[in-house]
């Protein structure tokens, strides 16, 4: 930690949050809100005089509220930076009449009540997302009595309780009477592996964390009786099984089955009822203290950051990597990488491994100082441009410029263009070519998807990042669906031109599905909002023409929703069967009469 604080190449911004990210690989511009500390980071020597005179006493968050701190405080003794800070909401104020005691005693004069939050803009080439996890709050698991019984603790609280730097100086005491407990129980999988409350996934670290705690306890207090209530013990890592074996050999009892209830006795002891899986009987265990081995859940900041950076999440709320085996620390967006628990629960060793991996991936990307651009970008055919400005309006990246006054046609900045193709789909004059996903290329696919037996086919447009990946995931999961599906890949659902849909129906498609990333998850910031508008517009035109609008569907499928993709394909096939040959023939006739681009005109 201190190394990171001192390193000449590291600029450390604490009390800081990302508020905006613009740009693309190699050229990100990041806006950071640096909150005021009210104590000069440079000047403060962490002498602590200020805290001694501060009259405001509050629970210490670092010690899970088991001890107290002042309004001006150091987060913990080894904090980096070591400087103190003021929680300004708790502080009585800088008016000498009211308080300002800390400022009076500070010899270095590093306390400044007028410090204000500042916005910092940083230009960077790559981003490593290492936002970590939060511990599960066991309040909702009422049966364990976490909120009712003083001697029921979360594993993180217990961690502070036995820490030498903790509230009791490392002395193991029971919260209710501050005496050494004679017996301690640990409950595993609190908030993990449950279909009912908390998360369904395994939080990875809790088994080993409990085993570690039993070993620490046995080392200092061999006489304490320890019982661990568990579903399975997962000691899969290097050296883990040895620790588990050692714990058992020291007399720690591992009892299969989780408590159904925890009742407090008059002396604040706890009676824990556990269903013995082997005998089928309820067994009661009397314990002085109970520790809930809480699981891990995604950090609260995950969702906001995901939206800002245009990333994807797995259904359990962690960041989705570009490939689970081959690109475990890359995001699907170029220039963004993951490290640690942001990508899923993991222990310290794995977090460190990922941190190093992410740094190697960054170096691999940046070391030359230049890279080849993705040539899949949009291009304007200047002579067709009518200066309407529609492309400028829909481009999520501000990559298109146009000067109406001087009659300069639209132009795409290829470095800023990410290649979603929304502009090409929206241009009313067909003046924009989306390279590698041109109208001609896609029309060729549509034609062949619907030949020779269009009525037996379901035409599906799927975006590369979410829906196409979701289709792949259905395949990887071996989920079976009807073989009538013919899928056309575009980079973004925003590329699906109105003319593709009319072409499909004109060639006899019974039903057409447009699919993309969920709103808010679009790989191209928010290009899919134009997909929504476009599909709605086409549906209205279909209705006017006398074509059932239900035959055109728009659905969002994420990269992780293989099951949803497969069931959606089943549904589309059922819809296809409902469309009669007469209905198809009538549609084909209607569209043959109407002009292609704008059939209702």
């Amino acid at each position, binding site marked *: 930690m201190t190394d990171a604080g001192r390193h000449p190449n590291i600029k450390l911004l604490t009390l800081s949050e990302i508020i905006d990210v613009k740009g693309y690989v190699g050229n990100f511009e990041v806006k950071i809100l640096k909150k005021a500390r009210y104590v000069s980071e440079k000047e403060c020597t962490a002498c602590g005089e200020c805290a001694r005179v501060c009259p405001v006493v509050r629970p210490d968050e670092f010690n899970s509220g088991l001890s107290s701190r002042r309004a001006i405080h150091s987060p913990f003794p080894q904090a980096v930076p070591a400087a103190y800070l003021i929680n300004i909401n708790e502080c009585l104020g800088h008016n000498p009449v009211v308080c300002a005691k800390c400022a009076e005693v500070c010899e270095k004069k590093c306390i400044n009540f007028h410090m204000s939050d500042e916005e910092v803009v940083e230009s960077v080439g790559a981003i490593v997302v290492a936002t970590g996890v939060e511990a599960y709050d066991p309040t909702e698991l009422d049966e364990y009595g976490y909120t009712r019984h003083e001697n029921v603790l979360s594993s993180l609280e217990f961690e502070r309780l036995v820490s030498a730097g903790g509230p009791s100086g490392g002395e193991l005491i029971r919260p209710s009477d501050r005496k050494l407990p004679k017996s301690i129980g640990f409950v595993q999988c609190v908030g993990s592996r449950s279909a009912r409350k908390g998360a369904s996934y395994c939080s990875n670290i809790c088994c080993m*964390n409990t085993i570690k705690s039993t070993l620490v306890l046995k080392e200092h207090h061999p006489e304490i009786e320890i019982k661990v209530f568990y579903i399975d013990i997962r000691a899969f890592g290097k050296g883990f099984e040895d620790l588990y074996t050692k714990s058992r050999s020291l007399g720690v009892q591992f009892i299969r089955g989780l408590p159904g209830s925890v009742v407090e006795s008059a002396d604040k002891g706890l009676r824990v009822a556990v269903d013995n899986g082997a005998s089928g009987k309820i067994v009661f265990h009397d314990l002085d203290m109970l520790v809930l081995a809480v699981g891990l859940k995604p950090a609260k900041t995950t969702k906001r950051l995901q939206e800002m950076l245009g990333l994807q999440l797995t259904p359990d709320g962690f960041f989705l990597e570009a490939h689970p085996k081959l690109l475990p620390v890359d995001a699907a967006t170029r220039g963004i990488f993951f490290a640690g628990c942001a990508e899923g629960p993991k222990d310290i060793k794995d977090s460190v491994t990922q941190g190093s991996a992410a740094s190697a991936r960054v170096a691999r990307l940046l070391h030359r*100082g230049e890279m080849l651009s993705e040539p899949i970008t949009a291009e304007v055919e200047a002579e067709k441009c009518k200066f309407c400005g529609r492309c400028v309006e829909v481009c999520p990246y501000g990559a298109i410029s146009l000067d109406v006054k001087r009659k300069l046609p639209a132009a795409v900045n290829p470095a800023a263009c990410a290649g979603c193709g929304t502009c090409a789909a929206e241009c009313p004059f067909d003046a924009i070519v989306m390279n590698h996903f041109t109208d001609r290329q896609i029309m060729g696919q549509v034609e062949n998807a619907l030949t020779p037996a269009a009525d037996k086919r379901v035409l599906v447009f799927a975006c590369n990042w979410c829906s*196409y990946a979701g289709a792949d995931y259905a395949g990887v999961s071996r989920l079976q669906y009807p*073989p009538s599906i013919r899928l056309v890949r575009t980079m973004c659902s925003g590329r699906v031109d109105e003319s593709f849909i009319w072409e499909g129906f004109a060639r006899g498609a019974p039903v057409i599905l447009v699919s993309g990333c969920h709103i808010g998850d679009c790989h191209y910031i928010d290009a899919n909002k134009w997909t929504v508008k476009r599909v709605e517009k086409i549906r209205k035109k279909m209705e006017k023409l006398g074509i059932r609008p239900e035959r055109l569907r728009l659905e969002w499928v994420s990269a992780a929703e293989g099951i949803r993709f497969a069931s959606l394909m089943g549904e589309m096939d059922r819809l296809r069967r409902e469309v009669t040959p007469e209905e198809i023939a009538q549609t084909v006739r209607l569209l043959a009469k109407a002009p292609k681009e704008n059939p209702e005109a």
Partner: protein
Amino acid sequence: MKKNSTNDGAPRIGVYVCHCGLNIAGTVDCPKVSAEVSALENVVHARDIQYACSEPGQQAITKDIVELGLDRIVIASCSPRLHEPTFRQMLERAGLNAFVLEMANLREQCSWVHMKEPGEATAKAVDLVRMAVARASRLEPLQSRKISLNKRTLVIGGGIAGIQAALDLADNGYEVVLVEKSPSIGGNMARLDKTFPTMDCSI
């Protein structure tokens, strides 16, 4: 290079239908697919192949590109999300532009999802390759351009993973901005007393 630009004449497409061991061939009749598509317009050469992505597979395709003067390649195998970069590199090594490649997804989106309907899966595979051939005949070579990269890196989160990433980068000579929302770095790890498997303290 002539092969890098669109030929004056009709496209010369090579189609390769990959068995992927039994992943595709277990359901889809690969020789039948390649036989059916060989008659398509612009298809100069079509064959099935054991593992297109393997070294011998890539060598065989490269050899065809050179000897038969192929200028568009259709690989009917797994998802392009997996091996598109592999085959693009292969094309470049063979002297073609990386973007005259089209993949038909016969594995994730055909053989694996229609495992009980080999006849239907084979028919669908033919369709998918036909769609790919149609697209391939209209593909144009594309050129990348150089973009400059800022060598600074932003690390969001000062827990153990973020610290490690920042230190490794910094030690390698890269400038790092390490952003942490709380007043100190250290994250959850700093709150732990002892850590497994070494049983030492966390800070």
